[in-house]
């Protein structure tokens, strides 16, 4: 008899949750705990708020000498640099200092002692040595890496890999509801769905009636989904305006709130989906990297506000399936459905826990 087990942990400033099924409840729980332990380990390794994390160590040392990495962490950095290049710099893990300047960072690891806090920006200064598996900041650049754009996805990827390795065939994992990975499809009696785990993307319009009626949903089967949105986190700007939390490393450090308000990327890797959902939000409807995104084989959804009479409604468009051109969601493609039906999970980029996996 298939049983559904639910496990959760707090990591990376949010709540990670795993729903998994199997007929051996004890074994399934053990597999879930191992996956959660990996997520907690990622939190310890990649938190810029902890002095003893690996990322703080890299930020202190890598301008002086190469820092050795394990294969998984090295692969994550490889994704970061690839998306940085393909997106024309729209995704950049060195943008942390700009985030601090704009008031999005609290007590992260302070600038190194021994001189003025000179911090550089630009992933082009990051060098990955494939042979030695090291990371190095070239020319002594004092970068301050912030993996906030990919760490959750990376943790979810490792957790999924662990679950699969332990024989789990049906699971849904999410991190703060902004990223989801799935294994197989729901198999618990009464909740079976051969299409996969249905995940609804909560509309930026947060009115109660709009929460489900205007949001797309997607059936995920052995795949990942990442959502980035302007409303996830905001800070007041000097001019009295409210700035979104996704920073454009190429410009003056802001993303226009009038442009793209939300993006969702579906692919096989949560880490890659994380990076691209950020990049698409940054580049916005200018479409600067839509062609590059089209080559990734992933599917993207963007949401723009559209004024209709007195109302501002979210308008969704599809990107990626036909080589990168924008396509309004008039006809909903096979895997993406206009929602309204109950979902297994609801995602947005709000990090509030009033929404979560909905099915017991």
């Amino acid at each position, binding site marked *: 008899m298939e049983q559904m087990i639910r496990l959760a942990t707090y990591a990376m400033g949010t709540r990670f949750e795993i729903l998994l099924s199997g007929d051996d409840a*004890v*074994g399934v*729980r*053990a*597999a879930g*705990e*191992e996956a959660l*332990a990996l997520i907690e380990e990622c939190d*310890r*390794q990649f938190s810029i708020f*902890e*002095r*003893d994390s*690996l990322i*703080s*160590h890299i930020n*202190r*040392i890598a301008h002086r*000498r190469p*820092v*050795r*990495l*394990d*294969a*998984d962490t090295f692969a994550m950095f490889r994704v970061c640099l690839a998306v940085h290049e393909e997106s024309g710099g729209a995704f950049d893990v060195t943008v942390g200092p700009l985030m601090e300047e704009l008031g999005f960072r609290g007590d992260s690891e*302070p600038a190194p*002692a021994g001189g003025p806090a000179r911090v550089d920006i630009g992933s082009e200064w990051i060098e990955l040595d494939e*042979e*030695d*598996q090291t990371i190095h900041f070239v020319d002594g650049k004092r970068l301050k890496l912030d993996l906030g754009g990919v760490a959750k996805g990376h943790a979810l990827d490792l957790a999924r890999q662990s679950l699969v*390795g*332990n*024989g789990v065939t049906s699971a849904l994992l999410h991190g703060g509801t902004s990223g989801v990975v799935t294994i197989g499809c729901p198999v618990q009696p009464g909740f079976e769905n051969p299409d996969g785990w249905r995940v609804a993307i909560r509309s930026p319009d947060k009115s109660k009636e709009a929460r489900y009626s205007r949001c797309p949903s997607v059936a995920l089967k052995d795949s990942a989904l990442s959502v980035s949105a302007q409303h996830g986190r905001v800070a007041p700007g000097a001019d009295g305006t409210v700035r979104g939390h996704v920073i454009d490393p190429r410009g003056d450090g802001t993303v226009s709130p009038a442009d793209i308000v939300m993006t969702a990327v579906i692919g096989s890797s949560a880490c890659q989906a994380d990076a691209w959902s950020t990049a698409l939000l940054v580049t916005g409807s200018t479409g600067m990297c839509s062609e590059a995104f089209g080559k990734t084989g992933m599917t993207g959804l963007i949401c723009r506000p559209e004024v209709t009479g007195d109302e501002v409604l979210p308008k969704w468009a599809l990107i990626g399936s036909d080589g990168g051109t924008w396509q309004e969601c008039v006809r909903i493609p096979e895997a993406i459905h206009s929602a309204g039906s109950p979902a297994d999970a609801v995602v947005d980029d709000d990090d509030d826990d009033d929404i979560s996996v909905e099915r017991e």
Partner: protein
Amino acid sequence: MTQGSSRREFLHTAGGTMAAIALWPGAELARAALRVTEPFTVGLIGVGKQGRAILSELQKIEHVNIKAVCDVDESRLRGGLRRVQGAEGFADYREMLDTVSDLKAVFVATPTHMHREPAVHALRSGKHVYCEAPLASTIKDCREIAMAARDAGTSVFQTGMLGRTDPVYTLANTFVRAGDIRDIIGMRAQWHKKTSWRIQGPDAASEKARNWRLDPAVSIGLAGEVGTQQFDVIHWFARQYPVSVRGSGGVMLHKDGREIPDTIVCDFTFADGTSFHYDASLANSYEGEYEQLYGTNGTVKLAWRHGWLFKEADAPTMGWEVYANRQQFHNEEGITLIADATQLAAQGRLKDGVGLQQPPLFYGIEEFLRSAINGSPVQCSASEGLRAAVVGILANQAVMTNSEVAIDPELFKEG
């Protein structure tokens, strides 16, 4: 500006640097980071969770070359090799010790009941050995390791009990020994983590081997497996060992047929009448892991990466308090213990020092390498490992028999 901050500002600007050096009792504790100038080749035996953590910390130290990784579990060995570029994998530690010619040190992170063989073999092969705590799961094995370490000539042996090398604990130990909390009247510690302790394996044999902590034939339970680290902290701070322990426990959450309790309580008694209360649970995670020492002038709370001093209202003011960071815990105000405080205070960056710059494991490894390479005194010997393991083993015995067990000091002797 408050009166307090005016005072701080004054001291800092008007000769505050000198004052800080003079006033801060932990000034002499700041150790320079270990610098390894020539390649130093090491190997790891046992690639479970702790073994993987050791690899991660070793990777941070320049010129330390992890040349060999060993585990009988094939998938774990593969996982270990993914952590280290260029290391050679072995299924048999004897082959590793015999064939890797320039191996200078090995880290033993096998299951506790499998420490003795590789540790003794490595010592007799002339390697420096870092062995995870608890030292072993039987007193006989602990003694054998301690005797091999004693007879090892120039080879260094360190037991991985991390309180002894943790900068926060080292600083707190100085406070306590200097009498800052005055007379210790009691101690308390806990280890709480909600987890089943069960591990999946690719097949039945592998699963049984991986779940050694739940096997009553070899496991020394929560008291031995996680308690030993904390018992050593208590011994080190109190400068004495308990004379008896009363234990109890049960399976409160994970009712999956296990015999090893998932929740335990131990009460230790010392010869001077002080007591130490310990509880550990796999059924609850509240407040995690910490140790507390209660004195007549104050209380020290230690939580591995952080430490605090809570003063009694009638305790004398210490000069360095003007620089201290403070943290509120419900009705109590804790003074944060900062390991490299003098230097940071001099730079006006004391707040930056809250928490360790590296995980506690890093400092344990660093001290071991300092002893192996530079000949510095070993911070936690095999003898200390033996004594803490004896207490852990007997505490587990008390839990499993729901009784009081005497701790005979004769058992602390190597042989």
